């Protein structure tokens, strides 16, 4: 079954066409890469698919739900790790994860369990008590992905997850992404040919 199916997805800002009639299909459990130079429309595509911006034409279906007419259902099934780090800087890693758990309505018990589980899976256990702003770039990206995974999404969007990271941090982060491969559908954007 297709997890994502885009049909003539288009985004225009006045006279500028950013995404022009995109058709794509991503099967469940697949890791799908959007490769392109800066300004190619990768982030805009992710923003449209994650209901952050409305398409000006066409539609896309995530697990059968339209991103135009059924955004509430779409939001229940997705997780997004934006291009910027998008973490709460003055909260610790644990607090960031528990905060996201709370927003998804998990019980106190489940919050603790979920936080411990994700910290273990993404290699964050040793920095749980550290303030997010004090983490290295690589750890901040891991935290960002962990926060996107809190809601137990079926589809995960990773926008330039390795941007600005050094070689080692990139390699570590790719280990994390490989770990998730096959378990959930992932769409990631990159402008590195070797990553795509």
């Amino acid at each position, binding site marked *: 079954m297709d997890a994502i199916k885009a049909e003539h997805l288009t985004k225009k800002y006045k006279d500028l066409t950013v995404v022009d009639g995109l058709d794509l299909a991503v099967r469940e459990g697949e890791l799908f890469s959007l490769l392109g130079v800066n300004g190619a429309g990768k982030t805009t595509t992710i923003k449209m698919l994650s209901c952050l911006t409305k398409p000006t034409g066409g539609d896309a279906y995530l697990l059968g739900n339209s991103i135009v007419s059924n955004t509430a259902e779409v939001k229940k099934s997705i997780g997004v790790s934006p291009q910027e780090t*998008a973490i709460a800087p003055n*909260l610790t890693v644990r607090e960031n994860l528990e905060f996201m758990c709370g927003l998804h*309505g998990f019980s106190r018990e489940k919050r603790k369990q979920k936080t411990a589980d994700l910290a273990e899976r993404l290699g964050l256990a040793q920095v749980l008590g550290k303030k997010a702003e004090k983490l290295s770039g690589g750890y901040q990206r891991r935290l960002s992905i962990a926060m996107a995974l809190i809601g137990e999404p079926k589809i995960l969007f990773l926008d330039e997850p390795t941007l600005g990271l050094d070689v080692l941090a990139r390699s570590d982060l790719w280990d994390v992404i490989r770990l998730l491969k096959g378990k959930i559908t992932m769409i990631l954007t990159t402008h590195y040919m070797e990553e795509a």
Partner: protein
Amino acid sequence: MRILIFSGRTAKEILRDPLNLGFGLGFPLVLIFLLSAIQANIPVSLFEIGSLTPGITVFGLSFMTLFSATLLAKDRESAFLQRLYTTPLSAPDFIFGYALPVLPIALAQGAVCYVAAILLGLPVTLTILYAVLFLCPVSLFFIALGLLFGSALGVKQVGGICGALLTNLTAWLSGVWFDLDLVGGIFRKIANVLPFVHAVEMERAVLNGDFSGIFPHVWWVLGYAAAAVALAVYFFLRQMKRQ
């Protein structure tokens, strides 16, 4: 429930920033002690503790605009808000989540200023409690301004407009540092159509137990607070839509 969780995060972000504590709490206290010391050497009625403290509490609230605007602008620029827009949070969750936790911080700041004033000789009366409570609408005005600026401006602009311009406007146009009648003319007229001097006069009347003296000032404060809240909601929803 989600509002409470979001509010908790807002409060932690603000209170864990040492600069916020320094400006929000330290600066008004320094001013109270400094101006009281001046008053002790060169008596000026404006700087008598019963007149000075209400002014300083109102001036201190201008930092609430800076705190809430900076947090919101940072959340926008770091795409943290974008991430939150993909969660089940609704627009009212966001607005209340940003605004509500700043209110107790504002009242606590006012209370600390009055405690300092008591140490400097302000008589302990029930009107102090009322004066702290009357800070609510003033706080609401400044917090709403924070949401408005945080929704419309970037972090650097917020620093300039809320950190420098607004705090100075509040100081000059509130009659805290000098009697506005001494300047008179257009300056006095401008001050009178803005809420700052009315907020200070309202606070002074409440602290002195002159409850009829809160009029018409309270109407100015409530009017500006209502307008600021309406504009803040509009600008927040507009940026939410744009995201």
